[in-house]
């Protein structure tokens, strides 16, 4: 997390240099980074839930889902999280929040429609394992910080792109030789920042998935439930997830795809936030 804050501060600093704000840019960037971190600690879950258009459901709307979540919370000995449904056809789920007392579990409409009770228990068990292990705090803060890095660099790229085509207005500070080099460094940095952000994210993501699979199975005492759910999710990998984006990819039960029929190529596998489903199923079946 400290890494993500530093990264954000550095991006802000470079941006400051480029827009000729001087050392004050660093101060501003650090202040913004601190506010971002505190903000994502307190409100990150709401930001993440809103970004996928999740809406909270009561026990009357989704009795089965609520019963499953409550049952597994009892098994885990934690308070019952709030329950959200995301209007997406692709079956998927995630958990967010800062600690077990302030946690939420969100599942897609597609998941509710395709999974039977035992499979739903497997999925919710996996998400509750993330809650109990406090992976959700790290995941949620990373989602908002990485989101900010991606947003800033995209904003910059666009300003630069359109500024470049339209010709630079007046003789601003970017014209000179030294500023030109600085500009190149800044450009490189902003290209690399999103990649660095995903590397930080990957470091925490993949192994935690295996762990949550195992702990979820320990809660349900029935590994085939989650294995079967994962197989169904793989079978529907072609269904796109419209609200998916790079910042929240690591939160989901399985990595969401944005494009119809998209499958991961070898290069994407290197940068995947989740281990391959076949491997997860194999480990569950060995339990």
């Amino acid at each position, binding site marked *: 997390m400290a890494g993500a804050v530093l990264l954000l501060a550095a991006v802000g600093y470079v941006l400051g240099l480029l827009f000729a704000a001087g050392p004050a840019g660093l101060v501003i960037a650090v202040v913004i980074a601190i506010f971002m971190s505190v903000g994502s600690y307190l409100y990150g879950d709401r930001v993440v839930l809103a970004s996928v258009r999740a809406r909270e459901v009561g026990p009357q709307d989704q*009795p*089965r889902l*609520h*019963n*499953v979540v*409550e*049952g*597994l919370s*009892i*098994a*885990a*000995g934690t308070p019952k999280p709030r329950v959200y449904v995301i209007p997406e056809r692709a079956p998927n789920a995630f958990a967010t929040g800062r600690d077990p007392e302030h946690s939420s579990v969100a599942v897609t409409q597609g998941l509710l429609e395709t999974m*039977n*009770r*035992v499979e739903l*228990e497997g999925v919710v068990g996996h998400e509750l394992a993330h809650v109990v292990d406090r992976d959700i705090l790290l995941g949620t803060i990373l989602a908002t910080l990485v989101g900010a890095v991606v947003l800033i660099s995209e904003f910059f790229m666009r300003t630069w792109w359109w500024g470049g085509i339209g010709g630079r207005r007046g003789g601003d500070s970017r014209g000179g030789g030294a500023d030109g080099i600085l500009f190149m460094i800044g450009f490189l940095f902003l290209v690399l920042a999103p990649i660095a952000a995903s590397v930080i994210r990957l470091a925490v993501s993949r192994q935690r998935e295996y762990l949550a699979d195992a702990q979820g199975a320990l*809660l349900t*005492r*029935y590994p085939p439930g989650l294995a079967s759910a994962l197989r169904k999710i793989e079978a529907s990998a072609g269904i796109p997830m419209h609200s998916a984006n790079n910042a929240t990819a690591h939160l989901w039960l399985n990595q969401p795809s944005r494009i119809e029929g998209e499958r991961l190529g070898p290069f994407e596998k290197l940068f995947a936030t989740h281990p391959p489903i076949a491997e997860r199923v194999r480990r569950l079946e060995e339990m």
Partner: protein
Amino acid sequence: MPAWLWIVLGVLVLLVVAGIWTFNRLVSLRNRVDNGWAQIDVQLRRRYDLIPNLVESVKGYAAHERELFEHVTEARARAIDASSVPDQVQAENRITRDLRQLFAVVENYPDLKANENFLALQEELTGTESKIAYARQFYNDQVMRLNTLIQSFPSNVLADAFGFDEREFFDIEDPARGPAAVDFAG
């Protein structure tokens, strides 16, 4: 102060710290066991509340299964009156068996199976059954951890001194994954 005194003092401090840590662990496990028991109780009560509704809604469609209704109602009354853990376990097992039978009978009444009221009740009951199972799982896990700590050395010395007692496991038939389970598909 001579060196040996420092060593003795250090060992004493370590012992006290370890003692406090063990005592707090015993207390926290005992609370978790109590909490687990309360949770089972909540869910069992929920089941007692649901049974009369279930019997009523099935009666409307299958009046001649009277004997079965009486069985369920009687098992419920017994479970409510049970005073010891083994008694309760036995009564709960009977309820679980009778309910399974009831749901098996319902299979013969397509109208009833399509009734929205009944479906909602069935979901509530299936949910409650699995919550009982999960509450029992949590309770038994905590009882095992508490009993292990009470039996192990050196925590057994502290447990004896402060009157921490071993607890009984709650062994009830597992409703969700038994052979003729309540229908949980779909």
